[in-house]
């Protein structure tokens, strides 16, 4: 297979065509998705913590699935559609996504460092299963680490969205 020369990513509805190489602004084959998001594209809403898939803090949605962006190489993402926390708001009106609003309403965060990952994991869950039970929510979010322990309010926030339109 011929080596690919560029990767095309659709991030938050926008197409990014990025050359592969080691110059500034290019994608090094060793670059992880979180590196590209934060360092190359300036999308710092996605946070990085453990770097080894343990904490869920770097979660983004790729082709409808919640994935840890620290464990995926950007060159593997060619042609993928990616949503980060920045893409959740209504980009025209600035209105928060109902999940984000629920996190505000239930103060489902303390320091907020894990919050983007929590919200993206919950979003992927609700996209797949709009009305999950409490147990399903807990299971989906059990890979998201929060040292401040905002779990209880997170659960309430996600449940409140899940229960809408039931």
């Amino acid at each position: 297979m011929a080596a690919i020369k560029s990767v095309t990513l659709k991030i938050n509805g926008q197409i990014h065509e990025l050359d592969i190489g080691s110059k500034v602004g290019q994608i090094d084959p060793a670059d992880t998705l979180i590196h590209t998001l934060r360092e190359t594209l300036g999308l710092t809403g996605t946070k990085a913590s453990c770097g080894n898939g343990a904490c869920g803090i770097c979660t983004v949605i790729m082709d409808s699935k919640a994935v840890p962006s620290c464990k995926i190489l950007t060159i593997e993402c060619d042609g993928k559609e990616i949503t980060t926390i920045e893409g959740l708001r209504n980009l025209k009106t600035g209105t928060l996504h109902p999940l984000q609003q629920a996190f505000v309403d239930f103060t489902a965060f303390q320091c907020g460092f894990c919050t983007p990952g929590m919200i993206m994991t919950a979003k992927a869950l609700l996209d797949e299963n709009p009305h999950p039970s409490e147990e399903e929510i807990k299971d989906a979010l059990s890979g998201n680490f929060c040292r401040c322990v905002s779990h209880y309010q997170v659960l309430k926030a996600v449940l409140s969205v899940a229960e809408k339109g039931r």
Partner: protein
Amino acid sequence: MEEYRPWTWKIPEGSENDKRKISRQDAHERVSGKAAFTRDIYLPGMLYAKILNSPYAHAKITSIDVTKARALPGVRDILTFDDPEISHDTGIGAWYEASGNYNILTLPGISDFFQHPMGVAVVADSEEICDRALRLMEIKWEERPFILDMEESVKPDAVKIMSEVQRVNAKAKEPNTVVADDVEYGSVEKGFAEADKVIEYKIKREVNSAAGVEPAVCVAQWRNDFLDIWAHHQDIPQWFLIYPQDSRGKHIPPLADWAKITVTMPYQGSYYGGFSWLAYSCCFTRLAVILARRADGRPVKLTYDESNHFVLGDDAGTYKCKVGAKKDGTITAFHWHMVGVRNPAIEKTYEATKIPNIRGSQEWGFVNKGHLICFRHGSHCTVPHTVMFDKVAAEFGLDPTEVALKNDGCRGHDWNWVTRYQKENGFPQRWSLKEVIDLGKEAIGWSKKWHPPGTKKLPNGKMHGMGFMQINEWTWQSPAPAMTYACLSLRNGIAAIIGVRSDIGVDAESAARSVVASELGLKYEDTVIHEKRVENSNFYMWQPGGSFSTAYITTQLVMAAKELKKKVLEYAAKPTPAYNSPHFLKTVQPPAFPGKKPEDLDIKDSMVFEKANPRNRKSVREVADIFWDVDPAIAHPVVGTADMMTVDGKPDPNQYVMGRQAHFIEVEVDAETGMVDVTNVACVNDVGHLFNPEGALAQQYGGAIMGLGRSGTEEHVWCPRTGVALNHDLINYHIGTMNDYPVVQCRINESHLGYAAFGSFGIGENPGAALSGITTSAIYNATGKWILDYPTTPDRVLKALGKI
């Protein structure tokens, strides 16, 4: 002089309800990905820096060849430990590191523990290039003997370790003892002689970690001789850039003039303090500044990996305990001999009991596990406290809650004495411990569920147990010393609280807004936190995200708000002077409330009104704003200061800690597997006065789960043969997530027994430290067996049950 008794102040009538609808100013940013943490600071031309992590527990670099690393494209600078610019730099005075007991070098050439950031720092165009360059270093190491067990370390014939680390405490002893201390109140020998029974036991704790989520990071940039810093830190770090001394005791010139340093504290990802971590982050900040100084004006971002967050450890130690008690549960004396960090661990028990004879002795020795102190106050004192009450209760077949009440008091005084003290000094006559125990017992159903140890088997075959502990919140329950100030400005009817923001998430800010709103008579939404960068100032509004946030700042804020309100009402009653400007008033304007005196007026819901005729009203904005350009007293900050606490206007060293906290858990123990399921948790915190219900709740949840983790699952594991840490990562270091614990039943008590405004003291330290010994209590109740070797993991349970 007006008597200064903040605990007697009352929240203005009617404003009490405001606190029920607090919303966080930072909420939108935190949920939208816009909140910029220090990791998120990117500046034009920024370079990145990383430090080598030692692969050895204790080893000296004998030579380092950086040639290959330097040749790597994108590498801009390499600083090695033996460079004269850094070789003797301690980075920090002894105070921060281990409360003044020893100094660490900013970039040492000897590693003191596995993954010690040391030896060499690389500056490059990206973090990845830094990592690659560090791998290209050709380093020769001389391995040194290491010690992991502190009891071994303090022996007189132990091999000397960490010889380059300066011991600065006068009580340090060769070869490895950092501090040896012995404190006694009363006479323990006399107390033991009075006891019906003297019991002895030993407690052991392994190290646990704060394991915060945002790895350490600091950005530094020089603008000629001006220095800008963005710090992931809970404190303002200028001073250690100013007052260093080198490892030979020589003075090092300040890195920058105090007045030329600007520090920005962005959002902080879960930061739980910890003296050892603070020391590291101080050295770390200093190193970032030094690297930036060499970068010719380009900003440098120095980062650690997440694994480095595990260099902060807490709780390690052993406690040999001897306790004398009477049959009714009255403790006559105790002596804890601790081989562990910090101080002799008796402080909280001395503060919060009537026990007349207390002795704490301590030996603190170096170990090659990272520097260990505490975080979120630490459980060095709460664990022996918890176990002592449980042991005495078990010895005489008593309910541990009764034993706790029997021994409650302050510094050897019983509660009758405390009640008299309360009366004489304007406090309400309340018995906090009784109140929190009653609330907690009711929440968890203690009276029905508690049983003699090892007597209740559940239908699922597991053993049922109930655990309890009580202690006071942080000892310093008073307003801050002079370094804290409150600074308000009022414009457009909005009161801005001007201060350095460094909120780690505990949301002291909403409490501050609530206090200002109620004191000024404004609506909560007419207050804001106005972030100020630290410039040329050693004052800060509150210790950012630290142990004392709310109690520290609210007293000063109330004072400042009272002052500001007085001004607004004065302005409401007097004419507005003319102001000679083309844009502003040319002529004198009549008063907003003609013919009224300030005392005829009041403010509520952001409206100034006439008390006798509330329909005569004008908005604060209308009344006060007109003065903005003519009277700087409104425009400019109003500063409230509070010196150390005084009682009756006199300095008072005796601030009695009268507030108490009680926590309860229910467990099921599987005697076959050793698994302990926590099925019910009730936390009752007396906060003195509640400012921010959601903030308090968050501290209870967060602290309870952290405490349960420290008690039951969290520990660092080292390879005994190599000294290599085996679980410095979030996969193998067990912290509970969503599925692991039940909902915590949180109860708040407001006794108003603190020394700060409205009798407040706080909450943040307590649950995280207090629950860190509680699983033993419940497992004993379930099985009748003691596990005094923390954390109470399944293997330890099985060992206690004689199964392995």
